[in-house]
């Protein structure tokens, strides 16, 4: 294996150039430098502005006639930008908040994602305000399922209907049980005319008669 001295000699013989004076005190500086071993090759062509910072002649600035959020990791608004959908309402406030944080922060990205969800609700409100009732079947493109995946679509609809039916049945059953529980606790309608009496139609009123508190 080459020693640092041998490498230095090889570097000098190959005409790789002298070590810049600011690094002359560092033994072996740049001895293994090989531009062709740049892992970003071939995407990136090294040019003479690598370390010049934000110094290029900027394009003309697009007029800023609307609210434009810019990352706090840059000093300005880029020379051009999109004008689609300026921030609005509560979601806009959330976006303003999110842009107070750098791109390194979850507050930034999750704040924006949450704002997107609020924006979706604002979108529905906006549609309704413009007398437009969103057509979910159209917007979700479900016609495509009807054309190309009908069996699955029917299965999904059937499963959805079953789930809704089951939920309704469980809710009804729970309501009846609650009323029965109330009866166990001491309440039982005195007659079939009282509110809620229909839940106790099959209930053996006689067996609890002695525990009933008068209303």
């Amino acid at each position, binding site marked *: 294996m080459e020693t640092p001295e041998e490498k230095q000699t090889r570097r000098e013989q190959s005409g790789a150039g002298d070590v810049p004076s600011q690094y002359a005190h560092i033994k072996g500086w740049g001895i293994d430098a090989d531009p062709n071993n740049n892992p970003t090759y071939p*995407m990136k062509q*090294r*040019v003479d502005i690598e370390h010049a910072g934000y110094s*290029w002649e900027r394009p003309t600035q697009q007029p800023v006639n609307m609210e434009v959020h810019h990352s706090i990791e840059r000093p300005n608004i880029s020379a051009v930008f999109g004008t*689609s959908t300026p921030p609005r309402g509560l979601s806009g406030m959330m976006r303003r908040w999110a842009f107070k944080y750098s791109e390194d922060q979850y507050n930034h990205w999750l704040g924006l994602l949450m704002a997107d969800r609020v924006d*979706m609700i604002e979108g529905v409100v906006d549609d309704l305000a413009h007398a437009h009732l969103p057509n979910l079947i159209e917007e979700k493109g479900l016609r495509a399922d009807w054309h190309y995946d009908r069996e699955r679509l029917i299965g999904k609809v059937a499963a959805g209907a079953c789930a809704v039916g089951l939920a309704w049945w469980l809710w009804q059953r729970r309501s009846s049980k609650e009323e029965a529980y109330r009866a166990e606790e001491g309440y039982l309608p005195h007659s079939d005319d009282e509110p809620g009496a229909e839940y106790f139609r099959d209930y053996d009123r006689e067996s609890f008669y002695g525990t009933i508190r008068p209303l």
Partner: protein
Amino acid sequence: MLAMNYRGPLRVRIDHKPEPEILHPEDAIVRVTRSCICGSDLHLYNGSVPDTRIGSTFGHEFTGVVEEVGPKVQKLKPGDHVLVPFNIACGRCQFCRQGLYGNCHEANPSATAVGGAFGYSHTAGGYEGGQAEYVRVPYADVGPTKIPEDMDPDDAVLLTDVVPTGYQAAEMAGIQEGDTVMIFGAGPVGIMAARCSWLFGAGRVIIIDELDYRLEFAADYAQCEAYNFRELEDPVLFAKQTTDWIGADVCIDAVGAEASGNALQTLAGRKMLLQGGSATALHWAINSVKKGGVISIVGVYGPTACLVPIGSVMNKGLTIRANQVAVKRVLPRLIEHVQNGILDPKALITHRLPLEDIAEGYRIFSQKLDNCIKPVLMPPSVRMH
């Protein structure tokens, strides 16, 4: 004009919107002749890209006829039929001068980690996209390229993203003659990466996906080996077994955030959005590549963190190369390849829909219905001719 209108996750519709105007002296207004739905549009469609605002128009793959140009535009004139790279690039910042047109610093105020792109949320600059009748195209002298007269417009529209991305995926992989290249994802980009891997001298090209129809297409189009990971049981173990227990020389992640195959990744990345996507393909790539191998990432992930075995990257001495493709840089070479018949992009197009059927198009593509590989949207003006 007619334009796609995003209404929330899995909800889009066609609406009337005002036509775009020249807002900057280097702008052009383009009347769209073709636009595509891209796999990365599905990240927006699913609501997983932060700052995707209601009312936005998506679409970053499109061709069109120049209708109007700003006072500083010199290379284009009304009537030119152009393909528009999805990157918006100024051509003079430090990054553009280095050829990194996907990382321009003067095209996106909202994020320093992301370049400017058409129709890709405010995280990519807040530009309206090409799934519309007209689009405002900034820096018109930099990106848009006149479509050669002998080129099919269907080929041209795929040169705005899919073909360059697949090509750069293979290029970044640093393929050496005889290398085994393993590609995760047989979507349009993965298929093109497989095809292009040969151009760089690969010795063996393997593509992995879960959809048989796509694998069959890939095997035929890219003349590669194709395997369904649902049948392999463990794709990483397969990678080792099929390479004499060494691992692939190169792995390419051509899936990104919507990957299937790992319940934890799917839950955290796609359902709960707790990470920047489901990183299953990248995870497999890291574990399938050989020690000292190269990972090339062109699959798109969100800006937050992802669960990947970074310890294995270090212990195996891997090189990871990744970027949005710099379309302008690779375009001249790819135009040559198409003109010489080496690449046939339009063969990827399986569906052609009217722009008005945008919601159906998204549904077909996202649910992989009707053996869809690549859908193209045709605006009314084109259909009339």
